[in-house]
């Protein structure tokens, strides 16, 4: 591998001087890499905020009765935890941060199709974040509806629902614009020779995700607007007192929010498909199968939304149909997992930090996926609906899936993004702590839920004491692991050793440009002549 082909004869995107200086050189930059980095900063800050709320909640549940906060505060805590983690961390997470940074590089482009629109969508993200946080401190108090904003309670409560909804609307708009930008970029700006089937699988995943962002998000937009209008003018559309049907709110909410689950997980799957070939030094097994399964997941994702509503009182026919389609989603997901595992077979595997995150992902996501079958099944759903089982399930898929890969992507691309390397030993220790803590925290919740512990409750019966205690201890270990990881990365950012151009021996285009990349990525646009994962030294890699 050639190291630093360009030596110091270039100016990296971190160093160039534009017409603005100081903070404005970032806030007004239309460079996709700077925008990606700003998203990453925002996402990590909000993640820490959401994690702190989780910490308070778990400490409250450490013992029965009031431990730290009262019941109303607890309602606000789980709502905010959900709103922050879903709308501000997981949904923008990988696409907005790593997608922005690497999508143009991986297809051999200098930027996205609409750079200014890209900046605008970052501002919308920040505006959404600010509005969401301001709803905490303004009169009325933090919202207590749960992140799903179900009517009619969200119409009746006196907390700042409208403001939080406005935040969600802005964030949704931001997400739409990012998606629109990515679709156009993929169609229009691929390097010469890069056909659709020579695109890295991360791009396929982002492309599929972008379609969901564009097509599904407007539905939540209108739903949000209607709830706000309902609160202001009582138009009656969702208000049962005026003839409205609250179940229709749930339909509209989940028409977006279920596909949104795939907005969250598909990019993570894309990252996995990048990391695995790099560390197995083998071309991916079943490239086309993985590429199409991304599209298939995005598509089937539109047919399953009402599996969140099995106990809402909707028609039996709908319940059967939605349950059936829910099982179908398992097929493309399974296709991916099997192809990843097949790629590893007879690969020369280097179990370095990003790879460890991927292994953790496969383990946790499989548990999350399999317990999803329990919930997708009508009969067992009745038993587990609204219990800790659901909480455990979605933390396994959302946290164990998306956020773990967010961390993995951070470790994979960190040397490329910042041109510095972190301490791999410390990182490995943090991976182990996160793994132990995670399972301690959430696996107990499966058992608790199965035993009947309802979600969102502030107190519990004595028989749940032991498991709640284990769960809280797991949370503390998990948080310790995350803090260690963040500390390690922070230290690397400040004084880590210089990273080489290609520390892992990857073959996608981002590894052909210097670390950190120059302003417009490529001196000369590359001409693509082969697929994304062809390893020249395929046999004997040291």
């Amino acid at each position, binding site marked *: 591998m050639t190291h630093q082909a360009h030596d110091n004869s270039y100016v990296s995107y971190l160093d160039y001087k534009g017409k603005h200086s100081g903070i404005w050189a970032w806030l007004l930059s239309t460079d996709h890499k700077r925008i990606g980095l700003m998203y990453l900063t925002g996402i990590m800050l909000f993640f820490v905020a959401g994690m702190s709320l989780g910490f308070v909640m778990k400490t409250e549940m450490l013992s029965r009765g009031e431990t730290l906060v009262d019941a109303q505060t607890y309602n606000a805590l789980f709502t905010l935890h959900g709103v922050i983690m879903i709308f501000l961390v997981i949904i923008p997470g990988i696409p907005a941060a790593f997608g922005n940074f690497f999508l143009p590089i991986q297809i051999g482009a200098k930027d996205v199709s609409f750079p200014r629109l890209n900046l605008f969508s970052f501002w919308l993200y920040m505006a959404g974040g600010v509005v969401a946080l301001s709803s905490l401190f303004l009169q009325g108090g933090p919202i207590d509806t749960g992140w799903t904003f179900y009517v009619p309670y969200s119409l009746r409560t006196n907390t700042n629902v409208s403001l939080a909804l406005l935040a969600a609307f802005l964030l949704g708009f931001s997400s739409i614009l990012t998606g629109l930008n990515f679709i156009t970029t993929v169609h229009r700006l691929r390097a010469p020779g890069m056909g659709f089937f020579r695109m890295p699988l991360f791009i396929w995943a982002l492309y599929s995700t972008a379609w969901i962002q564009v*097509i599904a998000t407007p539905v939540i937009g209108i739903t949000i607007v209607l709830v706000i209008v309902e609160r202001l003018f009582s138009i009656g559309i969702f208000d049962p007192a005026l003839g409205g049907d609250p179940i*229709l709110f749930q339909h509209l909410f989940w028409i977006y929010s279920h596909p949104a689950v795939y907005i969250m997980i598909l990019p993570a799957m894309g990252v996995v498909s990048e990391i695995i070939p790099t560390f197995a030094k083998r071309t991916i097994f079943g490239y086309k199968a993985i590429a199409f399964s991304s599209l298939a997941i995005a598509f089937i994702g539109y047919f399953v939304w009402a599996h969140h509503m099995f106990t809402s009182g909707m*028609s039996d*026919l*709908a319940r059967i149909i*939605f349950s059936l389609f829910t099982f179908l989603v398992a097929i493309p997901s399974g296709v991916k997992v099997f192809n990843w595992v097949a790629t590893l077979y007879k690969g020369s595997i280097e179990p370095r930090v990003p790879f460890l995150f991927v292994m953790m992902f496969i383990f946790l996501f499989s548990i999350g996926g399999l317990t999803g079958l329990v919930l997708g099944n009508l009969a067992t759903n009745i038993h587990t609906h609204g219990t800790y089982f659901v909480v455990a399930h979605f933390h396994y898929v959302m946290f164990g899936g998306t956020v773990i890969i967010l961390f993995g992507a951070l470790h994979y691309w960190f040397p490329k993004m910042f041109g510095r390397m972190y301490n791999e030993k410390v990182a490995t220790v943090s991976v182990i702590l996160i793994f132990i803590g995670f399972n301690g925290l959430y696996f107990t919740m499966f058992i608790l839920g199965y035993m009947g512990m309802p979600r969102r409750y502030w107190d519990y019966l004595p028989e749940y004491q032991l498991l709640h205690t284990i769960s809280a201890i797991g949370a503390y270990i998990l948080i310790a692991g995350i803090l260690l990881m963040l500390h390690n990365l922070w230290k690397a950012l400040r004084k880590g050793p210089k990273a080489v151009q290609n520390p892992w021996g990857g073959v996608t285009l981002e590894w052909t440009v210097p670390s950190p990349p120059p302003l417009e990525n490529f001196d000369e646009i590359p001409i693509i002549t082969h697929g994304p994962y062809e390893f020249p030294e395929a046999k004997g890699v040291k």
Partner: protein
Amino acid sequence: MEITHTHSKSHTGYGGYVLIWLILIGLTVLTVSVSGIDFGNATLPLALLIATIKSVLVINIFMHIKHEDKIFRLFIGVALLILIVAFVFTAFDVFFR
């Protein structure tokens, strides 16, 4: 690296647009005049059919889709398909409660 202009070609002429407009007005008059007649269960589908014909004309001629790349039609197809899925699957609930 050359600059490539990807202009769209010229579309329908003035006369063509006016013709389409006349058809659209005609369909509007039609849909208003038949609205007084009771076709039973067919009333709503008939009104929607006329509206659909009108929108096909607007999309194809006024919005130039007839002259655009295939990719635009594919995009529109995907978007409409998903919209229809949302309608049909919601109907599975509300029509069968």
